[in-house]
């Protein structure tokens, strides 16, 4: 049945012509406005002043795995800016596409994900300003991505800021927590550095790393979580190459 449904737009699209693929990116309210306390299992809350991602690849991939269209140069997106932001507008052969592929990676020697903001837990708060050089390819399957000849379709790279605070890397019962970050501010100066994060072993926190036994400190843990922020069209999951 699924295959039949997918054939219909193919037939409608015909065998010739091109269509327009419009790509946007959005950090949703969690990045633009903040993550409220009801989202955190331990009553913390967070706001971001910076949430930049470097998109080095945004590509339309057909059923044969061939890239039909893609951006030529990396784009740095500031997701604290309101609303979905234009990432690319590309022309491609009019047909149905199986995959939208995104890569969030450093452009040269810089970072791929940079986040800054404030985490507040009761009377305690820490500011953070971190940069990660993680390299992640997201293989996403939009629900029905079809470019009709002379027409257009759109895909949104949706970035979930709350994922940075998960207490598990793989378990689907992971919760959003912040207290461990507060406690990690070793010199209690109100600023949590990446070095302070790196000094905190994960095992005593009760966090879970699943198959990633090499993730032993909180800095590596958060870096790993930066590789799970990418989604498609809201809640669509994407397979990931780390």
């Amino acid at each position, binding site marked *: 049945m699924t295959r039949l449904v997918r054939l219909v737009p193919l037939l409608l699209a015909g065998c010739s012509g091109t269509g327009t693929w419009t790509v946007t990116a959005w950090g949703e309210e969690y990045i633009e406005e903040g993550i409220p306390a009801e989202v955190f299992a331990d009553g913390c809350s967070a706001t971001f002043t910076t949430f930049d991602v470097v998109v080095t690849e945004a590509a339309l991939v057909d059923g044969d795995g061939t890239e039909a269209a893609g951006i030529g140069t990396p784009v740095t997106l500031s997701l604290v800016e309101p609303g979905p932001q234009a990432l690319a507008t590309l022309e491609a052969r009019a047909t149905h596409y199986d995959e939208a592929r995104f890569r969030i990676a450093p452009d040269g020697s810089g970072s791929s994900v940079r986040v800054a903001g404030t985490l507040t837990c009761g009377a305690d708060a820490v500011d953070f300003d971190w940069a990660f050089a993680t390299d992640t390819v997201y293989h996403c399957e939009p629900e029905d991505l079809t470019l009709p000849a002379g027409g257009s379709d759109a895909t949104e790279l949706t970035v979930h800021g709350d994922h940075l605070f998960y207490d598990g890397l793989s378990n689907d019962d992971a919760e959003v927590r912040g207290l461990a970050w507060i406690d990690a501010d070793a010199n209690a100066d109100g600023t949590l550095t990446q070095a302070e994060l790196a000094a905190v072993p994960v095992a005593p926190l009760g*966090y879970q790393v699943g198959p990633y036994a090499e993730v032993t400190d909180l800095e590596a843990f958060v870096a790993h*979580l930066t590789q799970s922020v990418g989604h498609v069209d809201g*809640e669509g999951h994407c397979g990931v190459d780390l």
Partner: protein
Amino acid sequence: MVLLLLACVDGRDPVVLPTTFTGSPASFALDSGTVTLERAELVAADLRLEAPPVVAWFPSLVASARAHPGHEFAGSVRGELLGEWSLDLVGGDQVLGAGQGWEGDVATARFDAHGLILVGTWSGPDGDVPFDIALDVDRSIVGIDALLTLDASRPDGLALGVDLPHALGFVEWDDTDGDGTLTEADGTLANTVVFGITSSTTWALAPASETP
């Protein structure tokens, strides 16, 4: 129900999955000392085998708070052995039962972990310290490596194993309350035990024919 649907849609042949569990050695050395276990038991339930993942799309019916961390989105349930068992983590082969599956590839496995009991002696730099730990883990252990293919024409069993030296290698053996016995009340001992026991790489699932 999920299995039933999978079978109907795919037209796959059913496969019976006799499943055993084998424990770890009761005594082993870690970097910081030696663990000798007199008793190690875990209440486990509902072992499921998962096919390789496909990219899933979830309609935006809920806000962004949906819990979906990680990258290893499990595929369809390819087989399951439902029930609850008290695993002797330092025992020999233990029969868990015969599960049901359907032909095809398996990538990962998962089960639920509940009560954990560890009794024994920790021999560290400062001498021997007994431990008596009782914890309600109450978490799912997901993403267990289980690369195998279920084939009705070549029936095989499943062997679940545990690597306690890996699991307990994370433990902080500090008698913080100074009562002479390490328990779940000592500092971060409970968290580090749970961390190790729920680590996917503590567990492995393999065809019985490939298990020595």
